[in-house]
């Protein structure tokens, strides 16, 4: 689903009339996103930024045929909004709320899996196909069409990397923020096929963090793809949180290490064994991207 997104893809925004929602409806439209409907429980608002507002996702989807929905609702409202979306036949949901309770995220994950839909979240700044559209609030200064498929747990660290790329005239083919939550929708390994199949993507940037096993699982996915005889693309990785205290989450609940699981060393070792390059600094990562793009 993510690979087919373009400026023509119709998009619903749930929570469109909220303070944050309405601002970002405007910003996304300016960027090129084809927002066709908003959803809000407020009966007194008929439209926002020229987009018609419906009482629930089912009505919005029925009226527009949209299969993509961005959920700009508070964390405690994510589960019910996701149920509304999935019930309406939405195939891709993106949730941007920060601090979704983990047990709620598990329920969303099960529901999405049962229906074969795709979920980006729980807490993500969104995703973008620069030059086409964006869902969420990835900053425009960091977005530029280019050869790198980007995926990141951290919003800000990916903004920084994206910004450096953009100012160097490089950019992104597809950018997916997977979020820093322990329980989430799309994980790094789920995105390998997307980037390998996407003709715009020449290199893959993995921006990870300590905690969990996504980086390790991505390394395993690389090895499987290689064993199947698929042509891999260069993978460049940053893993933040080397200095994190064991047992203490650094902002992201997912960035929590116990014993040997989810540590920087474990991730670096597995990624490098699978053929990825892991960098110690943002500068080193950017240098490698420049080399890949023929700038050096």
């Amino acid at each position, binding site marked *: 689903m993510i690979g087919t997104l373009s400026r023509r893809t119709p998009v619903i925004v749930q929570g469109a009339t909220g303070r944050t929602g309405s601002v970002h409806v405007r910003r996304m439209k300016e960027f090129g996103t084809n927002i066709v409907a908003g959803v809000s429980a407020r009966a007194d608002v008929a439209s926002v930024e020229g987009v018609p507002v419906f009482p629930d996702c089912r009505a919005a989807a029925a009226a527009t045929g949209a299969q993509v929905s961005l959920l700009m609702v508070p*964390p*405690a409202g994510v589960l019910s909004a996701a149920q509304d979306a999935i019930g309406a036949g939405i195939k891709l949901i993106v949730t941007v709320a920060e*601090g*979704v*309770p*983990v*047990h709620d995220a*598990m329920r969303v*994950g*099960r529901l999405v*899996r049962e229906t074969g839909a795709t979920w980006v979240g729980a807490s993500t700044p969104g995703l973008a196909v620069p030059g086409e559209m964006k869902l969420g*609030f*990835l*900053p*425009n*200064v*960091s977005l530029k069409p280019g050869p790198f498929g980007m995926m*990141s*747990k*951290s*919003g*800000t*660290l990916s*903004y*920084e990397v994206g*910004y450096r790329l953009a100012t160097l005239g490089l950019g992104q083919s597809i950018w997916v923020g997977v979020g*820093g939550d*322990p*329980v*989430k929708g799309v*994980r790094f390994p789920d995105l390998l096929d997307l980037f390998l199949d996407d003709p715009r993507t020449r290199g893959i940037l993995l*921006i990870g*963090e*300590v905690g*969990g*096993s996504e980086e390790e699982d991505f390394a395993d996915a690389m090895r499987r793809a290689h064993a199947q005889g698929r042509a891999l693309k260069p993978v460049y990785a*940053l893993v*933040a*949180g*080397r*200095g*994190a*205290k*064991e*047992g*203490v*989450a*650094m*902002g*992201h*609940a*997912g*960035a*929590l290490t*116990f*014993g040997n699981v989810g540590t920087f060393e474990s991730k670096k070792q597995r990624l490098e064994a699978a053929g990825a390059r892991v960098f*110690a*600094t*943002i*500068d080193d990562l950017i240098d490698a991207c420049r080399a890949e793009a023929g700038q050096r």
Partner: protein
Amino acid sequence: MLLIECDGKALLRAAGIATPESVVVDGAEASALPGAGPWIVKAQVPVGGRGKAGGVVRCDTEPEVRAAQQRLLGASIKGHRIQRCLVEAAVAGHDEYYLSLMLDPAQYGVRVMLLREGGVDVGQAGAAQTQSRLCPPDTEAMAAAVAELAAGEPPARRAALIVAGKKLARLFMDRELMLAEINPLFVGADGCIAGDAKIVIDLNAAERQPALTELIENAPAIYPDAIRKLRDGFDYVEVDPEGEIGLLTTGAGLSMMLIDEMTARGGKPLNFCDIRTGLLRGDPMRVIKVLGWIGERPNVKVLLVNIFAGITDLAEFANLLCIALERTPVLRVPVVARIVGNRFDEARAILNEKRPDIAVEEDLTAALNRVDAILRGASA
């Protein structure tokens, strides 16, 4: 977030799972010991591997207990200072098991694990695969999995394990836990006794879990980072109380990366900080709080501000920063402000006018070099 053992055990007891007779000591006075000995003295820090790190001491006599307490209190394990010890009556004459319910994030389920013979080395995968079941997040399903995994045990043991499994499953669901591990779980004729408790809670659910917030609120010195998150709504974690570089930053991943890069350069960062500029909304209070916490620490030699403003108005932030610095007389160190993004030029003009002493940089590497130079100057 991992709870210290005595708090985890309080949750277990509330769920009807017995724990050994015990007393919590913080060094202030010699409390009466539970039972006639022997005892186990355990450092209460929120990390695994305490036993291997010397944080669990078996004692046969009262003087040994006092000596162990004295040795442990104030020492550190994996960067966590030991503020409390749990002194427990040693449990004898029981079989030991390992029982855990662990969130499986990729499967959207809960992995139920039951192994005979507990002990510190359990948990290293391998054998675990064959003796675990993946369940949906549902009390009955998890309880049934424990019963199934206990199928080969002697009848009395099995019955006790099933009872404990059900209680632990209910606790896991009711308190929205991410991990509930008992290792060892003592099983005897009188039922189960939890020898340890490793409970990981979800701070995102704290608002609807008053029992958990109460535990945290009652131990502010043990959970300072969680307290800050609950009270102030953003993240600030002290990484090294002796640190020299204070951080006023936004974004979890970028702040972590900055700490890593500064450490690799030989710097000593004090703290992690994700202030969430999007939620400041014109109020300097958050910034003042962070600067105050940084200012309390004795070795801070420089403040690094790093704000990537995708949407945030940097000009507004620049004003807030000036106000906050003004109102934090305790922090008088050089400031490097790396700001980039929305309304950078206006922000730089504001800082140049109001605080010409602040080094403003748009490039992150240049800002880190500035910090290095200040530290070198300070130590020279």
